[in-house]
């Protein structure tokens, strides 16, 4: 044991110039003091309660937050912006007005009154006093709500030692809220999802061939049966759309022609049912998507030429955001082995178009 200690000492002894007392002291300062100060400057348990969330309504806001630093506080700055980030430029929420606000209630750290107010800015002031109660709340009455329901707004909070919200900040943090309405305003363009499926469709879905089935002919182990159908889709919803393919693979009674679960080449002589949404040359069937909107695309597994797959419920095409009308051609292939049981093999594929969340 003694030998081990001597050996360890001899090793560490050489490092004594690197880990000097000064360096260790500096590290202590950094880890013990610097980190907690940075983390502790935010108010804790922040929240905003709106008495009414109706756009444009005159209502009361209760701001709740906990002071963290026990230093004397003389003012609290409340800046109403679209963006909660303290150092970003502040854009006032459309329609919001706090210029007639009244401080109707306060709890926790009290003694404040409104020193200054503009349509999106309020400064609460009091004689500088050290913090004794952490959790505090301030109710501002006669506040006019923002009018935009589609985005949240924020209140950027800062506490200062001065009585006019100038000089260094002590604590900071933001709260967020959103006005909501039960029913979409009639004046807005309602989101729409347009969708059609048939043997052939027009880009705008206003004309279809009227045939919504595909006769693929007679099964043979020597060749691949093929068919195609079309669907057009478009939406002005910001979330985009998704189309899923639903329904079992081709079957006759209890006999099912299996479908590959990963993109696979067409292989005559095997039992295989698959689809894709692009132009193929082996076999020659299908077309690439038509339409100028690049964001509406086949799902990657259904977008590989000459490779086919079919899993019920899979998303076969989608757009992550607004997409005007786009036309997809779905190619179907069926291969059969020599020992496939006789029968009339059929299926119904239901394409379901939905919005995205």
């Amino acid at each position, binding site marked *: 044991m003694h030998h081990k200690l001597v050996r360890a000492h001899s090793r560490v002894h050489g490092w004594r110039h690197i880990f000097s007392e000064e360096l260790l002291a500096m590290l202590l300062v950094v880890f013990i003091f610097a980190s907690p100060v940075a983390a502790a400057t935010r108010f804790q348990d922040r929240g905003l309660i*709106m008495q009414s969330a109706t756009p444009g309504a005159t209502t009361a806001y209760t701001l709740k937050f906990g002071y963290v630093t026990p230093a004397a506080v003389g003012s609290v700055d409340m800046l109403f912006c679209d963006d909660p*980030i303290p150092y970003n430029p502040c854009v006032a929420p459309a329609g919001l007005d706090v210029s007639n606000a009244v401080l109707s209630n306060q709890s926790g750290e009290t003694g404040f009154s409104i020193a200054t107010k503009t349509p999106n800015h309020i400064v609460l002031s009091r004689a500088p006093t050290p913090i004794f109660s952490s959790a505090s709340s301030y109710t501002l009455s006669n506040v006019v709500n923002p009018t935009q329901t589609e985005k949240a707004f924020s209140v950027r909070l800062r506490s200062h030692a001065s009585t006019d919200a100038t000089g260094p900040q002590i604590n900071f943090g933001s709260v967020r809220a959103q006005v909501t309405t039960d029913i979409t305003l009639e004046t807005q363009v309602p989101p729409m*999802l347009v969708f059609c499926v048939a043997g052939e469709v027009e880009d705008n879905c*206003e004309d279809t061939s009227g045939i919504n089935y595909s006769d693929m002919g007679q099964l043979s182990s020597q060749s691949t049966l093929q068919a195609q159908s079309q669907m057009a889709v478009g939406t002005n919803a910001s979330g985009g759309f998704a189309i899923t393919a639903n329904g079992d693979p081709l079957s006759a009674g209890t006999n099912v022609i299996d479908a590959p679960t990963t993109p696979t080449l067409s292989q005559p002589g095997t039992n295989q049912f698959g689809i894709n949404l692009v132009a193929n040359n082996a076999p020659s069937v299908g077309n690439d998507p038509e339409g100028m909107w690049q964001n509406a695309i086949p799902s990657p597994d259904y977008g590989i030429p000459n490779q086919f797959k079919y899993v019920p419920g899979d998303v076969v095409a989608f757009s992550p955001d*607004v997409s005007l009308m786009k036309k997809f051609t779905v190619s179907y292939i069926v291969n059969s082995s020599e020992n496939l049981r006789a029968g*009339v093999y059929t299926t*119904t594929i239901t394409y379901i178009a939905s919005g995205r969340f």
Partner: protein
Amino acid sequence: MVMAAFVVMVGLAYMLPARPAEAASSASLSIVPKKNYVIEPGESVNDKLTIRNLDPVQPLELNLRIIDFTFTDDGGTPKLMLAQDAPQTTWSLKPFMKVPESVTIPPNSSKTLDMSVEIPANHGAGSYYSAILYSSGPPGEGGNVGLSASGVTLVFTSIPGQVNENLVIEKFGAYTKATANKKAGYVFMTADEPQLLAYTLKNNGNVTEAPVGSITLKDLFGKERTITDINPNGSLALIGQSRTFTSCIEVESANVDFNGASSPTKSCKSPGLWPGYYTATLEAYYGQNGNRTQELVKTANFWYLPWWFVIAFIIALAIASYYVWKIVHAIRRKFGIQSKRTPRRK
């Protein structure tokens, strides 16, 4: 004899048309993709569903059904629970929602249906969601593959009050969009100019969440640019979902005409990034009205190294190395320094 009968049967089966053809319902419709409501316990909302039949010839026969859904992956695609015996989810709106069972819409016209959502008194706060499935009539008889079109309206309802909110950052960084033959994903080093930054949040709470905030992108020389809207589409993280939210580094906004109405669109455009190392900082906020506002902060890095830059860098490095070698060689010659090479053993 049995074998001969089997051959005849197979032959007949293959030669006969699959099914006789007959007229079909329209499969061309226009619906509302999403509805959002905020309803206090004990209150209800009566709303309208407008459905349009775009087919100029066939009537559109639709059956309406309320189904539950969850998430498919980390995107916004719903996973629809279509089975009649699918178990009801804990966030289902089925018990509270009413829609008509069926509707027939004449060719090239539209109909407006009544729907309602009624929340019982004393019902707990949270997010509830289900979908309305519009199934078109069966396909015409004939052929091997019948086609049918259906649409879905997603319905989200928020019941205000004290809720359990808990988002955790799983990933953050540069992101490439899905293309027809490539899946979307995060990248640490890329030769293509990144146009998107993304973050993945796991929702462990009992409400859907739509974070807000900003992302600051800084290059090697400290030049900053800020993305002020980190959730431009108001996308949601569903209960239990790990959801990836994407933001364009540079956005291009435009208005487009869709079915006679002007609609705003946003798309990514080249942000004009220089090759190099980038640091991105995410500051996201979330919290429902009346609940605690919570903050998420994360930093990520990525390299943007286009091929032209890599090749130019290697060439420049080679040239610099050559000149350094030449200078060293010249200095050695000037001062008569011999290179220290181990003499070969003879």
